[in-house]
């Protein structure tokens, strides 16, 4: 059926304009609820600051993160006795500037979060959509598989996977993505099950939409809210788990300035040089808090049940 009459195209324009303004209104409403949560806004600001530091680190960090100053081993922060103003947060056991390493480390942590979330989110969504949409044996099989993954403590499973794949940052990210994705599968499946028999889905099916279209274009956009919240949670979990793996010697390998790996190297100095241990952990903590604050804000803004109260 082709219809190119001027009236019809004017109607189409109107529909498009209306949908555009509805999207804008949705965004405005989202921002209204999100910004009411002061913590979330602070979290977002810290997060953007971290992104800026990570991106600009090569230019703004005072030293090369791998440069070993042979005359400055374990120099304390500048405010401590014996501290030097060139090394604001002090140096580590081989004379590397801690502040510079932390700044470069931000790029590791943030990219770990992004990559892990992208992998686990996309695999999780597709698997969850298939499980919820197909139902029956396929659904049972997929969900039992997810139960199996969830039966193991995440860190333990990630450790064994990294032992199989070989220690290193890439393998650590793959392992963490695998242990995090069952949450996305479960969420997507649950959302699909509740949407599948709604009128708009039935209407789309009757109009002749194919399976792929029904799954990705009709149903998926209506399941997005819980997935976004879970994605932020997974982002912070990924950073924590990757740092834990690095700390255990199974994640990023030295001399990488990944924060967990820095902590692993610093462990033997805990009683003699507190700064080597304190700052990398503080960096992890601040990053994870910022992301969790944003996650709380997103939940408030996207959860209709909370909005009413």
């Amino acid at each position: 059926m082709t219809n190119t009459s001027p009236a019809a195209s004017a109607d189409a324009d109107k529909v498009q304009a209306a949908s555009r303004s509805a999207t804008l209104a949705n965004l405005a409403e989202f921002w209204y609820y999100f910004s009411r949560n002061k913590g979330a806004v602070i979290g977002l600001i810290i997060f953007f600051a971290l992104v800026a530091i990570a991106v600009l680190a090569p230019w703004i960090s005072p030293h090369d993160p791998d440069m070993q100053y042979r005359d400055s081993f374990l120099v304390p922060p500048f405010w401590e006795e014996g501290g030097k103003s060139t090394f604001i947060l002090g140096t580590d056991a081989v004379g590397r500037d801690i502040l510079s390493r932390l700044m470069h480390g931000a790029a590791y942590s943030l990219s770990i979060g992004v990559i892990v979330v992208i992998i686990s989110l996309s695999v999780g969504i597709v698997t969850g959509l298939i499980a919820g949409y197909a139902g029956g044996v396929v659904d049972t099989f997929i969900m039992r598989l997810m139960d199996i993954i969830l039966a193991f403590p995440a860190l333990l499973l990630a450790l064994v996977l990294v032992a199989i794949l070989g220690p290193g940052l890439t393998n650590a990210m793959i392992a963490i993505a695998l242990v995090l994705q069952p949450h996305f599968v479960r969420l997507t499946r649950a959302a699909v099950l509740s949407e599948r028999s709604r009128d708009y889905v039935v209407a789309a099916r009757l109009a002749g939409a194919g399976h792929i279209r029904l799954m990705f274009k009709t149903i998926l956009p209506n399941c997005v809210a819980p997935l976004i919240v879970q994605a932020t949670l997974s982002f912070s979990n990924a950073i924590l788990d990757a740092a834990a793996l690095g700390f255990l010697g199974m994640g990023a390998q030295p001399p990488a300035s990944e924060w967990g790996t820095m902590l692993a190297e610093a462990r033997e100095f805990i009683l003699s040089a507190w700064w080597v241990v304190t700052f990398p952990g503080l960096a992890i903590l601040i990053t994870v808090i910022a992301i969790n604050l944003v996650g709380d804000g997103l939940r408030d803004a996207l959860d209709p049940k909370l909005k009413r109260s």
Partner: protein
Amino acid sequence: MLRFLLGRLGLLIPTFIGVTFVAFTFIRLLPGDPAELLAGERGITPERKAEVMKQLGFDKPYWQQYLDYILGIFQGDLGTSFSSKKPVLDEFMTLFPATAELALCAIILAVCIGIPAGIFAAVKRGSIADQAIMGTALVGYSMPIFWWGLLLIIFFSGILQWTPVSGRISLLYFFPQVTGFMLIDSLLSGEKGAFLSAVRHLILPSIVLATIPLAVIARQTRSAMLEVLGEDYVRTARAKGLAPRSVIGLHALRNALIPVVTTIGLQVGVLLGGAILTETIFSWPGIGKWLFDSISRRDYFVVQGGLLLIAGIVMLVNLIVDVLYGLINPRIRHN
């Protein structure tokens, strides 16, 4: 109720079979080869290697190895550790009480502080106390616990010198292990100062392991409580003129605790995962450290058995929580 229970058990069986398969497959995917690992740096002749592989059963086809392994599980045989030459199950049983003691102390700490804190925050919603509690909880569940452990060591063991850095009890004390729980055994031994030493060793690891569960429980209690406080029956109870204390304690809390019970159950996996980090930092001789060390030195059967046992514990606890949940909440049972 029986149908509900059987249904849950029915779901568990395929998962358990899957877990055995994962544990079995994973260790066979580990790089390296057990015979060469056993030989160490001495090296090994091809004939001897074939002999060792045969002894370990690695020469058989995979399906037969798997079958032997499953039959072994039913007979309580999970293989032998390469490093200690002891049966994996025996080693597990020796070390498990240490982890159980630590995990129990952590969960008691988390529940005893988390639930009251959550209730208080909900009742005083929006107050400074609420914000302080929720702020602390946010820091708690964002905490890299391995770093938190190191900080506590710096402060309490390094600066204040109040607590020891590692182990379960001072080396000065020797007494038989009756229960495997150091707190109880030290009391039973009657040795002066032993109990106090056990407490001082236990306190920092417990705090570290409790941190995330505590924060999660406090947040969950608060939100469950807030939901319940808005319900009609709570308003009715208030309107009847009941004292606020009994409205909260009798009417609200009981219903609010239902989702909290599930949350507490779900923390078992978190605790066992956290035990790997906590035990490594504090040299706590439990299964977390044992498994991590075994993964590092490729002790195949320990990793295989340990994975199975830990997943088994997590599944068992989840089943218990499910059943408890069904008992408290009939709607779940009949759904």
